[in-house]
């Protein structure tokens, strides 16, 4: 047996993940190309960008799930391939987008699985405390004894996060940690992530909510079409101009009046009072109009069509309600 050597936590500011010239292909299509990225210990880095930009692919490549077509990825100072699976598991933890479970393990069982890489090492002594802390931080203690599969989507997502936190690695990779969560738990999860970064961990999170990225991230990397288009502090990266072009949708960015944090506002068409009156004054007119305009692919002159179609659909709905 080899003697166990606990991984040394990189000092704050040291490069924990180094990506150089990374390209990833799926079949013939390049989904990532020419990606250079350094993630430092002590920072929370948000990966943002539209669907299909390559955020999850980049995260999967960094955690070793996808082999790069070109380029290198170094983790804690050594090439990804050079690490044995268990040594890698003691250095980085990965939260996947979805967690499925083949058997009815309880929430406490699932969180305890995060301690597996430390089995048989002196750090095994921390198991109970690490599991309890992770469950408290993610607010899952109340249903610790319930089967994981019986939980709601948001509860499952927090349990999966608790498992990853319990692994206690100096590198944390989180793929959409807030996707299934309500407002309070989104804030809770990102403040936990920020706390981990401030304690010296390198945290990378894929986020779709740009407001959350602006509020919590130390650094934002904006991806589009498989390439990094901007990399820097939230204020520099999340500008109206950049977001409008990357997301192909008009976006306004305003500083918060008190904190100065960027507030990201996609342009939303509000129905004119006249249009909603012509729809018979019924409730669903307001939500229906933005949905119709969104599906029109951002083509502006769709506006007159939206209330008309909403108005057409309404009498049927109302008729149904009366029938009920």
């Amino acid at each position: 047996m080899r003697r166990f050597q606990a991984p040394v936590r990189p000092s704050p500011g040291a490069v924990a993940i180094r990506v150089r010239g990374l390209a990833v292909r799926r079949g013939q299509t390049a989904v990532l190309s020419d990606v250079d990225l350094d993630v430092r210990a002590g920072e929370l880095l948000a990966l943002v960008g539209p669907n299909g930009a390559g955020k999850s692919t980049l995260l999967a490549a960094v955690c070793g799930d996808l082999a790069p077509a070109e380029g290198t990825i170094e983790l804690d100072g050594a090439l990804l391939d050079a690490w044995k699976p268990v040594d890698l598991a003691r250095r980085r933890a990965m939260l996947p987008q979805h967690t499925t479970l083949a058997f009815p393990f309880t929430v406490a069982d699932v969180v305890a699985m995060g301690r597996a890489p430390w089995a048989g090492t002196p750090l095994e002594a921390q198991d109970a405390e690490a599991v309890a802390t992770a469950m408290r931080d993610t607010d899952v203690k109340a249903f610790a004894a319930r089967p994981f599969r019986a939980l709601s989507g948001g509860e499952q997502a927090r349990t999966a996060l608790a498992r990853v936190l319990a692994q206690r690695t100096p590198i944390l990779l989180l793929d959409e940690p807030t996707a299934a969560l309500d407002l309070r738990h989104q804030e809770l999860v990102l403040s936990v992530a920020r706390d981990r970064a401030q304690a010296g961990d390198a945290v990378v999170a894929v986020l779709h909510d740009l407001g959350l990225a602006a509020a919590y991230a130390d650094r934002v990397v904006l991806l589009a079409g498989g390439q990094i288009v901007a990399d820097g502090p939230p204020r520099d990266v999340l500008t109206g101009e950049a977001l409008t072009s990357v997301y192909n949708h008009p976006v306004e960015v305003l500083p918060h009046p008190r904190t100065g944090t960027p507030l990201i506002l996609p342009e939303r068409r509000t129905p004119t009072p006249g249009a909603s009156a012509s729809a018979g004054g019924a409730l669903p007119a307001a939500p229906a109009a933005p949905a119709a305009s969104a599906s029109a692919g951002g083509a502006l002159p769709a506006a007159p069509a939206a209330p008309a179609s909403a108005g057409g659909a309404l009498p049927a709905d109302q008729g149904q309600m009366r029938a009920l």
Partner: protein
Amino acid sequence: MRRPALLVGLGATLVLLALVAAGTGQVRVPPAEVLGSLLHRAGLDIGPMPSAPQGENALWVVRFPRVVLAIVVGAALGCAGALMQGVFGNPLAEPGIIGVSSGAAVGAATAIVTGVSTLGGWTVAGAAFMGGLAAAFLVYTTSRSGGRTEVVTLVLTGIAVNAVAGALIGLVMFFGDADAVRAIAFWQLGSLAQATWASVATTLPCAAAGIAVALATARRLDLLSLGDRPARHLGVHVERLRIGMIGVTALLAASAVAFTGVISFIGLVVPHLVRMVAGPGHRTLLPASALAGAIVVVVADLAARTLVDYQELPLGVLTAVVGGPCFFWLLRRARNSAGGWG
């Protein structure tokens, strides 16, 4: 904790049932006398000796090897089922899907028909063992692509191999004479009637080694239920674990099937029952499934040889007749309580 209580309870039940089963049959020996006979052989002069005429002989020549083989076969099948379900992360998997049973049947049928006897009385068992192992690794290697094994591909390949094996058995029976056909048919139904100390001496070490290796990997099997990638993120060498465990399952199932033919349903239903009582953690599931499998086979064999006077029901038929509907009921229940299989 619940774990020791469950394992001790199952173990005690198994010992009691084994004593009763050993004493039951045409020559009746009460459990106290069975125990007494065992202790006398162990050099302890405690308890009554069998009082029935030929009691001692019936126990040591016929009953004990049969009960011990039942325990070994049941433990191997129960543990192999739990292991397979863990390896594939699928509660409906069983050793049969990777082709062990049908491969073993082809091996045994070929040996019976060709009359090859290079291994003496062990030829049929040895051929079954080789057939099972070969089929399992054939399925596994052909279902690999790009260094990975997709579960769906593996299951479908297993189905194809099972179909081919079924055709081969049919072909072998077509070319065989009437005696060979009867022997194959009997072997396929499953029975412990041919149990001897020699067969125990072969299966016991194989089964014990397989169960020991399986227990050593219990914690990593738990992680596999998260899926391949999360298991790898937690430090499991997923491919290596899978290959190793498929080998262990082949060893367990083929060695159990070799002397007794195909005894169905044990590997499928026993782990389900245990999971309902003890939860899905493999550190409890594997040993408890082995013990419960042994209990089921001991009881089923007792029923097979005592239900009809002077006749022996085929064991595999009995377990399937009882086990099929039982499994169906379990499926419905588990599906409802889990809200679907997902």
